[in-house]
């Protein structure tokens, strides 16, 4: 079974470059602006879109993404509306992969089977669920695989060689390497250390390895893209959006452009990478 994610990585391999993966919170700062931003991402240079599903208690996220989630919830965002947003996006874009990233409870309450069916229909390609380690694969990972959705696992600096096979066993699409022990938007990792970690993971899998956490600038994105199959940027984009909001946290005329401009700059960094990891 091949998904949009598999197709995108195959195409990038032909071009000989790494992927630029962007994260935005669905519904931040309101559902309409958020959809406009998501629609602008592919033209600005995003190869894969991660869409955060807002949750009240994001235990692995730093202050920026926590605040983005609360803005989205305040604007009435829900998991159901996040799926509607993906469906609207798919009207104009049949190729850019979309990965939903979030926490398990909203999906559990929505109902796993119903969620998987609705997500597939809407045009979702993969899931990253922070609080579902391999020990809980029965919950969502195995049903998602059956439903034809990629379940993308996080590997971290604490995932040692002994544990990696378990983490990779039911992973598909790509592996998301969290480059630091910490929350989103905190410290940044040394790109050489990251390179070694990616090489270690690649000894265990043929899947592409993307790296996230702590990448904020085009130079940092380039350095990571030279050592991995993809660079993920989230907090820096969320911060760029926040910088354009008015005192009440509402979107302004600058909101969509500010995110698109930063994505363009970061994408140039990724595309300027000397050589993608193989």
């Amino acid at each position: 079974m091949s998904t949009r994610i598999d197709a995108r990585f195959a195409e990038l391999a032909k071009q000989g470059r790494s992927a630029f993966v962007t994260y935005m919170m669905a519904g931040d700062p309101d559902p309409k602006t958020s959809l406009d931003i998501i629609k602008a991402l592919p033209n600005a240079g995003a190869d894969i879109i991660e869409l955060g599903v807002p949750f009240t208690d994001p235990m692995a996220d730093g202050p920026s993404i926590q605040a983005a989630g609360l803005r989205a919830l305040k604007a009435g965002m829900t998991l159901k509306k996040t799926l509607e947003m993906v469906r609207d996006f798919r009207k104009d874009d049949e190729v850019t992969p979309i990965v939903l990233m979030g926490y398990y409870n909203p999906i559990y309450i929505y109902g796993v089977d119903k969620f998987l069916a609705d997500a597939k229909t809407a045009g979702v390609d993969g899931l990253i669920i922070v609080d579902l380690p391999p020990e809980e694969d029965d919950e969502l990972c195995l049903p998602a695989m059956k439903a034809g959705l990629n379940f993308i696992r996080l590997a971290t600096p604490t995932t040692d060689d002994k544990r990696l096979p378990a983490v990779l066993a039911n992973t598909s699409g790509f592996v998301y390497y969290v480059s630091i022990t910490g929350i989103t938007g905190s410290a940044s990792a040394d790109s050489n250390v990251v390179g070694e970690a990616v090489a270690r993971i690649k000894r265990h899998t043929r899947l592409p390895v993307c790296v996230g956490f702590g990448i904020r600038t085009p130079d940092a994105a380039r350095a990571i893209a030279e050592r991995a199959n993809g660079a993920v940027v989230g907090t820096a984009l969320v911060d760029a959006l926040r910088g354009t909001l008015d005192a009440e946290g509402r979107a302004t005329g600058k909101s969509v452009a500010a995110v698109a401009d930063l994505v363009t700059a970061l994408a140039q960094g990724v595309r300027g990478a000397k050589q993608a990891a193989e």
Partner: protein
Amino acid sequence: MNPGQSNPLPNSFRTGPDERGHFGNFGGRFVAETLMPLILDLEKAYAKAKADPSFAAEMKGFLKHYVGRPSPLYFAERLTEHLGGAKVYFKREELNHTGSHKVNNVLGQIMVARRMGKKRIIAETGAGQHGVATATLCARFGLECIVYMGAVDVARQAPNVFRMEMLGAKVIPVQSGTRTLKDAMNEALRDWVTNVHNTFYCIGTIAGPHPYPMMVRDFQCVIGDETREQMQEAEGRLPDSLVACIGGGSNAMGLFHPFLDEPSVEIFGVEAAGHGLTQLHAASIAGGRAGVLHGNRTYLLMDDDGQIQDAHSISAGLDYPGIGPEHSWLYENGRVTYLSATDDEALAAFQLLSRLEGIIPALESAHAIAKVVELAPKRPRDHLMVVNLSGRGDKDIPQVAEILKGEKK
């Protein structure tokens, strides 16, 4: 789901959890990958300690000479007369060093942390009782201690903040979310994810990812084990009923667990009904449903989108939108009956107990007393009822004084 109808009753209620940390459908290990290896290490370290007689001996020594155990089982004669029914006994956990049952668990976890070579201890706290117990044991064993506490709770439990700082702990007020216990737990988890290499997370209740609900329960079972012996000595038999308040539910589980397989013993847990169950409250079983938060599946307060809702209780220690997973299981299989008490009922019980028995209970424990006031008169005079007096109320006096002053105006 109606209690008692989910599954056939187990042969024993005391064998859980299974090796994956499940109590029936509840519990589990819902954590980020960064934490997973640590949780597996902790599970191993705890299993090793549990099998080691020197660990038990060390615990016993500190429980006796440092904590002051056994805590008395006290016949509350005047309350019994006043209520005119069941003979009411108090398990006096408020007499422990640091003033609550929390120290039983913290001592155990600090012993495990020392065996694991961890030098930095983090904790979350609501009312501050768990924070004070953690700060105390860290002082005793020379460990660095960081306590996360919601900014709202820092304001309403000022005496405990001062105690923690006096003991050398660093108290970090949490400004995110609702700024209460759930956010303190989020922030502690964020710290743990960041400082995995040297940090031990000392969770204050029977919640969180496996093995915490089991481990904390085991450390708290000293309450029920002692009660069993002391009641045997006082009355020559088992008690007829047990009552305890529930936030996460560790004092309750500590009392209940050793009696779960005694069918003659009625067991009542008391959740915080806040302003009332149709308004803001903290009663996860009465007003919530099964969901996943903070590493485990359990009953939680949430909306239809799975977003966690704000809890409210007059008592900071019960102000949490969840409950330990083992309680969720004991609710669904019907072994334990879960009741709830409002802020006003707890406040009345707080004053009643102060006047009748000369014991100022914690507002948390006052919730249990509030239901004893309802249950005891309906029971015969030879009925033996034990209530867990889980904490003392010194920390609540400024808050209660403020409320009572407001009522007089």
